[in-house]
């Protein structure tokens, strides 16, 4: 369990030390949480977390989670909180009374309604979800029974969203039914095990349609074995459906989903070379001496890691190399070795030198313009791993097993790249980062920044949110930390609501240049002021770090002002809410011509800015607009997938669709 985390050295000693020091106690406890703790150690650590006041925790954020369950889940709470701490989340867990999930959701007087959870987890047993049917029930009747169960779940999902605007996570059903027919089971629609299998299929489909996230314990129990996840003794004694020995994994699986939704998943896989991507040392053994490729088990094990990295890249994970090596020898393997599956062009950053890897990892994060906490560092050498854990505790460093055969499993089990959506843009992201490396080369060859930007031949494609954009829009809002003026996270449901609201101005921007399409890279949401129809407030403005320094913020503001003028708006108001990461936009509004408004009510470094649109001087940029026949505002159109869209959006998406095929 939790095999990717290092084994703790002196757990009790570290815990005592943390409890004795009032300074940065949470930081010390978070460091302990980065280890492979068992269930009992997890409970002890959780008690220690309880001694820290959540308000006095800079760098940690609080999440309110409500669990509505039809089984005992109290033993899962410590692992959930400890897994949260591992990701610098302080999870405030509310456990609804046993089995009363319907009443909790439907009764406005229930304690759940006071808590106002941000996340509602429905953790139901199969017994609760669907009644057993006679074995002779036809497949059609089984499907009808499942439909009734799914409809009931959907009602609960809808209720949780409407009442709390909460993100809903539905746990899949642990299939604990004992087989009656053996291998023939799948052919008997009414057999309990088959009934649950179908229920999980249909649940997945409904969740995808409704934008509900899944916590897939059914899949996890296939990975670890049902006996690890379900212990009938615990069920009989305490109605625990998830066994205590699986609880630490359960906590991590759940918090991965929560973290992914908040943009805290890792973004970049940094790989070592010698004894990681191949067996042997290229500097000593030479290209003929290293073991890699088909033909030997050991060579295929390293090839499997390369293949997995390549698949992650297709998923949108950025790849990088960080190796202590002679750069020419390292490059030569990628160029000349016939068995290399990964190519030099698959990597957005490639660092081979003899310097400290901690320095090199910082350099890679800077070069890619991503947070150092979004790196995963994979190295077979325990000394290098220890060095990075000590120097850069925010970097994830999997404790690779001794045998390279198990490298892929270790990285996969750790769930670093958990996701809550997958779009065409994701699949192109890694390539976009590689293209950014080419843009960097252009920058070096250009005389000036101005030449560089002109040479990029940029154009922007923009419009209000359309149905097909919503997932990507919500994703960008959810995971952007740097260029983010307020860092207000809006769920997919919120975004859909804003898109459908005529009074809101929603804008999404895509940037294309001669090296390729950067995808949907910026989003603005403006709300009408309740007091004045002439005034719009910039509630949210985010931009992907991929396109920093490209003048897109200027062109975006030009577009926002033009569009708003056409709506009859007189002025913009905007807040800047500082966080640990968004310093890059602290002077954004004054740079765009806004003036500061002093208000006593503003706290915590928040600044408020104002722009009368009549005063606005359009900013000069090197960005062309892709279409001149549509204004891109379209704010009054209904958001409906079936309604015809103006050609700006459609033409673009047709391109995208072709690439996807």
């Amino acid at each position, binding site marked *: 369990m939790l095999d990717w985390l290092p084994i703790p050295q002196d757990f009790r000693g570290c815990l005592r030390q943390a409890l004795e020091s009032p300074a940065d106690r949470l930081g010390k406890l978070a460091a302990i949480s980065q280890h492979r703790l068992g269930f009992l150690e997890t409970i002890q650590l959780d008690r220690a977390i309880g001694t820290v006041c959540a308000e006095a925790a800079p760098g940690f954020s609080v999440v309110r989670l409500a669990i509505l369950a039809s089984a*005992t889940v109290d033993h899962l709470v410590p692992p959930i909180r400890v897994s949260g701490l591992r990701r610098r989340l302080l999870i405030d867990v509310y456990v609804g009374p046993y089995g009363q999930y319907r009443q909790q959701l439907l009764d406005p007087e229930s304690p759940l309604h006071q808590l106002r959870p941000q996340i509602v987890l429905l953790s139901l047993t199969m017994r609760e979800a669907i009644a057993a049917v006679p074995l002779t029930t036809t497949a059609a009747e089984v499907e009808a029974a499942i439909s009734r169960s799914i409809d009931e779940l959907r009602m609960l999902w809808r209720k949780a969203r409407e009442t709390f605007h909460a993100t809903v996570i539905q746990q899949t059903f642990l299939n604990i039914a004992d087989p009656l027919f053996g291998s023939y089971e799948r052919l008997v629609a009414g057999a309990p095990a088959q009934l649950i299998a179908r229920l999980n299929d249909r649940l997945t489909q409904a969740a995808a349609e409704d934008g509900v996230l899944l916590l897939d314990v059914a899949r996890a129990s296939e990975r670890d074995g049902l006996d690890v996840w379900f212990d009938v*003794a615990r069920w009989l004694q305490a109605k625990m459906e998830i066994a205590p*020995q699986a609880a630490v994994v359960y906590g991590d699986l759940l918090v991965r989903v929560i973290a992914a939704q908040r943009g805290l998943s890792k973004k970049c896989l940094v790989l070592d070379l010698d004894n990681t991507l191949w067996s042997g040392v290229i500097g000593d053994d030479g290209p003929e001496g290293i073991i890699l490729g088909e033909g030997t088990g050991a060579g295929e094990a390293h090839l499997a890691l390369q293949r997995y990295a390549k698949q992650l890249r297709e998923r949108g994970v950025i790849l990088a190399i960080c190796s202590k090596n002679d750069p020419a020898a390292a490059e030569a393997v990628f160029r000349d070795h016939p068995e290399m599956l990964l190519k030099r062009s698959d990597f957005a950053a490639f660092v081979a030198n003899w310097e400290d890897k901690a320095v090199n990892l910082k350099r890679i994060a800077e070069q890619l313009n991503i947070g150092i906490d979004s790196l995963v560092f994979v190295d077979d050498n325990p000394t290098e791993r220890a060095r990075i854990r000590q120097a850069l505790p925010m970097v994830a460093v999997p404790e690779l097993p001794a045998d390279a055969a198990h490298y892929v499993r270790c990285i996969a089990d750790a769930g670093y790249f958990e996701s809550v959506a997958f779009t065409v843009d994701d699949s192109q992201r890694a390539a976009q980062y590689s293209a950014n490396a080419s843009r960097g080369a252009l920058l070096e060859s250009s005389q000036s920044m101005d030449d560089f930007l002109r040479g990029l031949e940029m154009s922007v494609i923009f419009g209000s949110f359309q149905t097909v954009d919503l997932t990507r829009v919500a994703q960008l809002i959810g995971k952007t930390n740097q260029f983010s003026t307020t860092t207000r996270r809006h769920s997919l449901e919120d975004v859909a609501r804003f898109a459908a609201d005529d009074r809101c101005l929603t804008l999404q921007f895509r940037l294309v240049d001669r090296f390729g399409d950067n995808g949907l890279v910026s989003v603005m949401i403006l709300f009408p002021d309740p007091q004045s129809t002439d005034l719009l407030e910039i509630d949210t403005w985010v931009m992907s770090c991929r396109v920093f320094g490209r003048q897109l913020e200027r062109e975006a503001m030009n577009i926002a002002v033009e569009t708003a003028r056409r709506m009859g708006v007189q002025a913009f108001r905007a807040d800047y809410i500082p966080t640990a990461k968004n310093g890059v936009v602290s002077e954004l509004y004054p740079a765009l011509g806004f003036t500061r408004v002093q208000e006593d009510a503003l706290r915590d470094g928040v600044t408020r800015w104002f722009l009368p649109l009549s005063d606005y001087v359009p900013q000069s940029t090197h960005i062309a607009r892709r279409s001149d026949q549509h204004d891109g505002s379209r704010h009054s159109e209904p958001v409906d997938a079936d309604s015809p869209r103006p050609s700006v959006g459609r033409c673009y998406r047709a391109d995208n669709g072709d690439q996807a095929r």
Partner: protein
Amino acid sequence: METKRDEVPNWDSFAYVSFIVAVEMEFGMKFKVADVESFQNVGAIVQRISALLPTRSQ
């Protein structure tokens, strides 16, 4: 050893099962469900653990 469940403050069925889980994990053994329901005091649990553990070699 003579301590009974109802003599411990805040002791409930969940606390009891958590305790049993902790004992099982610590000693790497499993009680029968029926045993767990029949333990009258701490001494009975200790006795059962000794019976279930393999005899220690000298």
